[in-house]
């Protein structure tokens, strides 16, 4: 033990985790390895059972459909036209019984030749009842002649079926609702990951037995931050980093569906999203226009109102706590719930807003079902909803302004309005810029407002699509994930621009 390490772990060093961390890792990794390996092997076993049942059912199908059809055509070719009706009838009468027979014979592990012979015999017996004697003899000759080739065909067919249903193919066909679906789907991945853990465990065990004390301390010091970061990064990797990469790839997989199928690589998704189907209205462009209009209408108004209110709140009038509570309340409440309340306020017949309009001798407006007012409804609700957040940012911006500016201005006899215009606004400029950008970004993602206000449809006449609503519809209703990804990329493009401006503002004014 070197002097340095003695100093680093003084008196109560025994309580330290220290180098034992390595040993603990070996144990934990081994446990994880065993667990994952067990799950993976179990999944693999289930997958094989599933594959067998898929193969069996496809074999039954092929024997049942193709086999009977071939025998039937062989019989038909041997007899004259007049008997064909009777033969078809007798064949179809045996079909259902034959299916059961095929299944049970497969269970008894009979060969395909035996099964085909059985089918032939059954059909032959059925034919004997319906077809006259002289025709039967012709059928017999024909069947004896053709049976070997039919059997050969069917055997080939069965082999093809088994080959076609390789494990990856089975994996694709799995139903999401099947029991142990994730274990079956990820069985290979689980085994590989468990192997990785085993390798880690072995390496660490090797280190534990060969390293001297100093190197063990170093190793433990390397392991420590990894341990702290692991739970955090697990979530980040699976649900943030991977999705970012995957969505970029997905946007270039044309018509990517939930089951993983897509028609080809290319920019088809972008073309579809941006051009739409010729001759019909392009909802993405409509959504983009609506979103931009929404941003342009709500953000400046919200910001202007917020500046005034924040300025007044910042004057520390009496009861400012009550005022703050009142102004910030919409921020904490669910948009869904307050959206429903606003829908009730906007109600055509009994709504408060129309009551106020009537009070000022106007005519009631059909806010929610008239297309010309959809945007106004959204904007009013949007302003009300984003105001608290904006006021808070403005308030914190105002509180950052040095008090001395105000004192000096007051000493010089400046009036409130003048102080507001000449001191508050210029010093608040970076905050205002920042708030404009942040609000634009969040207004860009408007979705819940549309869904709730218009009761689950994008506006009264499909006129209030927004970008995110379009993404949602593509993904959830039409199951076109590739196109949704392309739309999301376009959304990201705009948000990226706004974020860059935000970063620029923050850097320029040394803000935050």
């Amino acid at each position: 033990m070197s002097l340095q390490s003695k100093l680093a772990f003084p008196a109560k060093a025994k309580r330290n985790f220290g180098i034992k961390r390595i040993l603990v890792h070996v144990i934990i990794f081994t446990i994880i390895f065993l667990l994952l390996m067990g799950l993976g092997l179990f999944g693999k076993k289930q997958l094989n059972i599933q594959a067998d049942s898929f193969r069996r059912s496809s074999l039954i199908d092929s024997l049942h459909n193709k086999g009977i059809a071939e025998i039937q055509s062989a019989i038909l070719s041997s007899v004259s036209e007049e008997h064909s009706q009777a033969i078809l009838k007798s064949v179809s009468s045996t079909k259902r019984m034959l299916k059961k027979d095929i299944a049970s014979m497969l269970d008894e592990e009979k060969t395909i030749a035996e099964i085909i012979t059985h089918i032939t015999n059954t059909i032959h017996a059925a034919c004997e009842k319906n077809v006259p004697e002289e025709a039967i003899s012709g059928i017999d000759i024909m069947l004896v002649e053709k049976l070997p080739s039919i059997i050969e065909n069917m055997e080939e067919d069965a082999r093809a079926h088994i080959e076609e249903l390789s494990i990856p193919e089975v994996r694709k066909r799995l139903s999401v609702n099947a029991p142990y679906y994730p274990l079956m789907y990820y069985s290979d991945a689980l085994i590989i990951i468990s192997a990785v853990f085993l390798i880690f465990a072995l390496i660490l065990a090797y280190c534990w037995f060969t390293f001297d004390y100093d190197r063990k301390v170093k190793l433990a010091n390397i392991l420590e931050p990894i341990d702290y970061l692991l739970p955090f990064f697990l979530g980040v990797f699976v649900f943030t980093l991977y999705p970012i990469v995957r969505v970029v790839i997905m946007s270039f997989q044309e018509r990517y569906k939930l089951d993983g199928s897509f028609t080809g690589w290319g920019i088809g998704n972008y073309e579809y999203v941006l051009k739409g189907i010729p001759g019909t209205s392009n909802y993405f462009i409509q959504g983009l226009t609506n979103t931009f209009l929404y941003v342009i209408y709500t953000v400046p108004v919200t910001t202007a109102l917020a500046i005034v209110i924040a300025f007044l709140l910042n004057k520390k009038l009496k009861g400012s706590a009550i005022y703050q509570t009142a102004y910030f309340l919409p921020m904490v409440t669910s948009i869904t719930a307050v959206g429903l309340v606003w829908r009730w306020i906007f109600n055509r017949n009994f709504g408060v807003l129309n009551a106020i309009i009537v009070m000022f001798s106007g005519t009631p407006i059909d806010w929610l079902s008239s297309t010309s007012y959809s945007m106004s409804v959204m904007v009013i609700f949007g302003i009300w909803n984003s105001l608290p957040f904006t006021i808070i940012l403005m308030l914190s911006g105002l509180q950052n302004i040095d008090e001395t500016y105000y004192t000096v201005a007051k000493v010089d006899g400046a009036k409130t309005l003048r102080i507001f215009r000449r001191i508050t606004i210029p010093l608040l400029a970076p905050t205002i810029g920042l708030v404009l950008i942040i609000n634009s970004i969040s207004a860009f993602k408007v979705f819940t407002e549309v869904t709730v206000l218009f009761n689950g449809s994008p506006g009264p006449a499909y006129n209030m699509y927004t970008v995110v609503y379009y993404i949602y519809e593509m993904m959830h209703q039409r199951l076109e994930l590739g196109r949704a990804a392309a739309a999301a990329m376009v959304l990201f493009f705009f948000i990226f621009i706004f974020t860059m401006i935000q970063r620029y503002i923050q850097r320029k004014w040394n803000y935050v």
Partner: protein
Amino acid sequence: MNNTNKTENRKLGTILYVVGVMLIISGGISMLTSLTRTIVYSMLALGAIFVAAGLYFNHSYQTKLGTLKALQYFLLTVGAVIMVFPFYWMIASAFKTSAEMNYFPPTMFPQNWLNFDNFYIAFETAPFGRYFMNSVITCLSSVTLTTFTTILGAFAFSRLNFPGREMLFSLLLSMMMVPFEMLVITNYTTIVKLGINDTLYALVLPFTSSIFYTYILRNFFQSIPDGLYWSARVDGCNNWRYLWKVMVPIARPSLVTIVLLNAMASWNSFMWPLLVIKQDYNRTLPFGLYTFTTEVGANNELLMAASSVVVMPMIILFLFARKQIVGGVARGGIKG
């Protein structure tokens, strides 16, 4: 001579001012009554003229300051009323009968403030109790897990040294600008592939770690002086114990903020449950409320009762922890 003139002017001004203010107030009140509009408007206009004239004759500092203050209060109050009105309206409507709901113009107050029928009916029509439990379970587990991973992550990024720390962290920060709406697509497929769609796991798992909260907490952790750490180390405290016995108690205000913001976001989340949840008994409150709208049709009083149930916990939380929430939002600059 001049002086008496001035004092008389002042008296006149004060009288005019008071009369004007009273006119405006009474005009404002009579807005709510069925008095003829022209009379109301002329009352208001006359009041404004009187106040202006009063200010002209009596332009003392006090009066002006008083007017300005009154004006400020007035503006603030009007704004506050508009902001709070939907909440009042929600609660008032929740206590109305369906006949009362169909009055036009609507009545400001329900006839019976203790009419809880709508709540009973709403809870009978849809399993709101179940929704509530789902929301609570998701919220609690998501908050617990996120807080745990955030504390560990923030500690590693602020206190432990490892190569590439700053680079890794700035990479994480740049990932923050990717909107959740973009991640949703792949997360949806991941959840489906894992076979946990339509379960509560699907609502919790994607939200177990947050870059944003880690960023906030790391900033706070970094402001704790190094000396504390080294003295604790010399006393034989290892990193793990230092984190939980020293860092976490000091960072309690920040942690409270994180927990509150996280709880709010989880409680109010709408798009994600809408995507991954199908069965009725797995819905959370906002989603359940949303589907409830199609069930009740035009019975808005039931809807308002249900909305109150959804909104109330957050309002109560806000009333108790306004400062922390506001502080967190101001610091983070990101909508909760």
